[in-house]
């Protein structure tokens, strides 16, 4: 077999020099373009540095996000504590852990004027506990969501799910799952016991009562799961009700057509809040600021509401307005439309939502110890 080359494809000395010279001359531009790509090390819950959230910003600003994902606030604190200073440029934290981040000196002061505080949907978001210290800003709320009773609509009615009592339904024996983190579950058990706004501020007697209530649920429990397991358990029907989660899991499944949902029960629900802070020793503070501004912009807020990993509600008025404009289905599904009964802001105003916190009168270790006992019971 012979290969026939056309005359035009013959490589002459002149064409070789021309192509070679071109390549050589363009190399500095190519390498400079590559060299300018800045890596931004982000510590966050899963999904925050995935393409649906950051691709546009990466392309516009020649940035590459390098995420380190965690599950749970104490897991996040530990990752920072065990890493050399400056490892993480941008830190997404659960709202209740910002105070500890600040106390340990892991995050730097931010300039309030750089962020849209006058556009927040609720006054609490502008002055969230722990986000300010001595009049200085250390963190900006970026999104939130509510935890209540999450359930499979084929196994439970919305009426049954409107009280934490629903978890004790005899037909759900072995079908109640736990997201494997003590804070949301014990918080919900505290709400069931009627502790209301003081759900994390428990006296010894109240704490004992919460433990007793939780223990009484043990025979109903079919498993303890991480994010993926919780997702799978509800999706394949192995679990028909879940304690400690909310729309951040069922919302993603619902969008895929699964017959699941979450409601805020009569006893009240818990709000998870995610806030961005800038690492104290980062050399890329300006880029971090730019990204936080991007997430707080209307377009960034919509991206957050539509985040593939798990949805969260907008915290700015402009973000909500744009969501209503571009994705009314998602806005209505999550109650982010003015006047809807399940509007997250209305629920907060009605006092039905309490911000997740760390235990006030016990240590996290006490709660964790009980959690281990509970799992072994």
């Amino acid at each position: 077999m012979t290969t026939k080359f056309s005359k035009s494809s013959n490589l002459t000395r002149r064409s070789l020099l021309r192509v070679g010279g071109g390549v050589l001359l363009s190399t500095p531009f190519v390498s400079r373009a590559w060299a300018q790509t800045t890596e931004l090390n982000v510590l966050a819950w899963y999904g925050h540095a995935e393409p649906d959230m950051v691709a546009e910003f990466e392309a516009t600003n020649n940035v590459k996000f390098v995420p380190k994902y965690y599950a749970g606030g104490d897991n996040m604190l530990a990752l920072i504590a065990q890493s050399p200073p400056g490892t993480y440029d941008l830190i997404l934290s659960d709202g209740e852990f910002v105070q500890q981040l600040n106390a340990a000196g892991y995050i730097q002061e931010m300039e309030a004027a750089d962020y849209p505080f006058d556009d927040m949907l609720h006054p609490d978001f502008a002055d969230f506990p722990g986000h300010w210290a001595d009049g200085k800003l250390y963190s900006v709320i970026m999104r939130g969501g509510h935890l209540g009773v999450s359930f499979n609509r084929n196994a439970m009615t919305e009426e049954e799910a409107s009280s934490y009592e629903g978890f004790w339904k005899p037909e759900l024996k072995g079908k109640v799952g736990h997201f494997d983190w003590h804070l949301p579950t014990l918080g919900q058990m505290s709400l069931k016991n009627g502790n209301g706004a003081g759900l994390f501020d428990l006296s010894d007697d109240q704490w004992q009562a919460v433990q007793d209530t939780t223990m009484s649920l043990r025979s109903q429990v079919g498993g303890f799961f991480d994010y993926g397991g919780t997702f799978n358990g509800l999706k394949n029907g192995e679990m028909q009700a879940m304690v400690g989660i909310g729309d951040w899991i069922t919302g993603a499944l619902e969008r895929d057509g699964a017959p699941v949902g979450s409601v805020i029960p009569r006893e009240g629900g818990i709000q998870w809040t995610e806030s961005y802070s800038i690492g104290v020793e980062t050399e890329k503070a300006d880029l971090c600021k730019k990204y936080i501004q991007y997430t707080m912009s209307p377009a960034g807020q919509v991206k957050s509401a539509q985040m593939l990993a798990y949805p969260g509600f907008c915290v700015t008025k402009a973000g909500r307005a744009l969501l209503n404009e571009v994705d009314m289905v998602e806005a209505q599904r999550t109650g982010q439309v003015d006047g809807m009964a399940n509007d997250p802001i209305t629920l907060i105003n009605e006092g039905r939502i309490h911000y997740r916190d760390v235990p006030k009168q016990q240590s996290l270790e006490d709660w964790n110890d009980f959690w281990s006992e509970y799992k072994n019971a």
Partner: protein
Amino acid sequence: MTTKITGKKHFDLYAMTWRLPIIIWQGMFFVGPIIFMIAMSFFLVQNYRMTEAFEFVNWEKMFSRGYFWDSYWHTVWIASLSTICAMCLAFPAAYALAFRASENTRRMAIFLLIIPFFSSYLVRTFSWFVILAESGVVNAALGWIGLGPFTMLNTTFGTLVGYMTLTLPLVVILQTLAMASVDKTLVEAAHNLGCKPFETIWRVIIPLAKTGLIIAAVFCFILSFGDFVAPFYLGGSQDPTLPILIIDTTKSGQQWPRAAVVAIMMMVTLFAVAFTGIALAYRKRSSS
């Protein structure tokens, strides 16, 4: 050529040169980490950061907690159950490969048994979700004959299926190799002398293959005892084993020193099981 053995030992630089890499390797990746882990069990955690100390508080804390002992005995029990299941399930296959199959078939079978190790254990475990779920393959098949659905995921059964995924191919290989090395003429002699098949297995084959069989059992126990994936994903953490307790301990509160206590207890147990197994495997039969 004869080798003259003298009672006098002397330093052989050449031999030492060849031994040194394995000694360094063991020192760096086995002895060193163990010493560090033991030291770490006396450290303290303050503000999520480990600080060097020499306190017994972690040992006291873990040993005084009921959930630690519950996890410990549960792990011993479920790893033992896994070993018994794997040994029983593997034996017929290994026997057939050792005594009934041709040399070529045996070689091919061992190759096929090695193939699962080419893929990720985690992926193999996740594939069981499709099979064991209430709407999965097994329940669908059982539904055809009017049975089920049965809950298999997030149960001890699910955990055992995961353990079998991890250990069964290895146990079959080790049992096959152990039985293949049994002198066939002794088996034939037993038959010729009127020994029934099961009696031959019990009184001839098992005693002769004892060393390999015990090593297979020890490996199965060790792998099951330390496995995190099966009890977490297929067992739903319903009966927390010690590896799950380690994760829980480090995840919340970042109590690495307490996790080190659990890990040391696991190592002590595994050493005890391994040494007992080896002692049994190489124990000479008492002359009667």
